């Protein structure tokens, strides 16, 4: 996560995808990913279809492919893990060189790889094209309990502040020669973590006072709840609709 920006995956832009209301993108993301996950791993052409949908959306969003691909690197540990599966998988096995490769393991690895990658790609699309305040408003309009949205809003607002305090502490410790190697070296870090919690909590208390001072009475003020036109929903959900068609076709064929 980059130090100066709470939302490292966001790519500032003014494309049609950026301007879609966040709730259409959230629903679209969910539908797309569910379609992908429901597809049998043997329907390889279907995954090509999903990838194509994602690429078209990427093109429309004007997010550079390079940005997109590097941000998908979060997927990498799972790629590595999936690559191990054929080696530890169940019978029947086929011999490739000195290795005994599990056939079901191979299928499972492919299944995880392709679905995790498409899922991560779709998630990065949402994150890259949606500003945090829009995302929070979208969640609120999708009837996510307002208290949870409020907690998320505070979390994002203070992430940099808290992480910054933590980073400064760690730099200060490193400056005095702290170099953790084993679990036991983590003690100063844990003490710093305790101090950080107290600081965060006390800031929470001060924020609460600042809210009271401006008339907060326990009801979170709701911002405008303007409805979205049906047309916008249709446009926003188009990629997801194509994904559903692909998923149904993959089941039937």
């Amino acid at each position, binding site marked *: 996560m980059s130090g100066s920006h*709470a939302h490292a995956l966001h790519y500032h832009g003014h494309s049609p995808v950026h301007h879609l209301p966040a709730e259409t993108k959230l629903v679209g993301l969910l539908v797309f990913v569910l379609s992908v996950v429901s597809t049998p791993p043997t329907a390889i052409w279907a995954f090509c279809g999903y990838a194509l949908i994602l690429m078209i959306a990427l093109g429309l969003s004007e997010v550079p492919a390079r940005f997109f691909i590097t941000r998908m690197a979060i997927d990498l540990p799972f790629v590595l893990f999936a690559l191990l599966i054929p080696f530890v998988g169940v019978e029947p096995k086929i011999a490739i060189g000195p290795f005994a490769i599990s056939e079901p393991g191979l299928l499972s690895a492919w299944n995880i790889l392709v679905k995790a990658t498409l899922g991560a790609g779709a998630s990065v699309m949402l994150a890259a094209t949606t500003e*945090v*305040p829009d995302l*929070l408003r979208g969640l609120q309009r999708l009837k996510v309990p307002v208290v949870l949205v409020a907690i998320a*809003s*505070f979390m*994002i*607002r*203070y992430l*940099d*502040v808290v992480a910054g305090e933590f980073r400064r502490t760690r730099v200060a410790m490193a400056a005095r020669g702290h170099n953790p190697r084993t679990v036991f070296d983590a003690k100063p870090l844990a003490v710093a973590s305790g101090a950080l919690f107290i600081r965060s909590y006390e*800031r929470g208390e*001060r*924020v609460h*006072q*600042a*809210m*009271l*001072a*401006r*008339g*907060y*009475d326990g*009801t979170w*003020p709701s*911002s*405008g709840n303007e409805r979205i036109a049906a047309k916008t929903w249709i446009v926003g959900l188009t990629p997801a609709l194509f994904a559903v068609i692909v998923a149904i076709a993959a089941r039937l064929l």
Partner: protein
Amino acid sequence: MIGLKVTDLSFHYPDRTQVLNGINFQIEPGERVGLLGPNGAGKTTLLLHLNGLLRAAEGTIQVGDLTLSDEVLSEVRRMVGFVFQDPDDQLFMATVAEDVAFGPRNFGFGQAEVDRRVESALEAVGESDLAPRAPHHLSGGERRKVAIATVLSTDSALLVLDEPTSNLDPAGRRELVNLLASLPATLLVVSHDLPFVLELCPRSLIIDQGRIVADGETRQLLLDRELLAKHRLELAYGFDPANIADR
């Protein structure tokens, strides 16, 4: 503009530590008053009483025509604008515009009125461009000005500021003085920054160990070396109030 009258205010924490010990003072509408004192003198505690964030065991607080009580708490909080020491505590919403709108929304204004208030409050602090920005991307000076806008948007007629010059660079500090001096509001300013108080506030109070120990013209107080030394106040090196012209 409204005045403030504090009578016999005493406060102690649950562990019996006495923080305020019979505070009495009065501020006329439109006055700008500095509140000086060493760390731990009770400055912030006093401020927290002025809009009922802390409730004293004894004493009364009168804001304009209202005597602070549960019934008028919401009204008093609207009249008293509290600018906290750390703008990060004050700016808690996702964007500047939403933050400035937080007060007006709580006080029940409609969307159109909220928008108007946000616009005029940001204009008053000269930062209209910042509306869509996220608070954590602002500079120290911008944060301070937006924090002031968050209380201007509720039409606060009495502004209470806790250490407003902390973490400001000299240019930001200069802009803050000009901004505060231009506001049509009664001001009560807590600060360790004595030149700042001298420039902004004709009158000052000194508080120590929960009591008001001096009340008078800021320049006269700052010229009294003995008084300052007794209450752990110190002028910056090379700064002499006698040589400064009135604003």
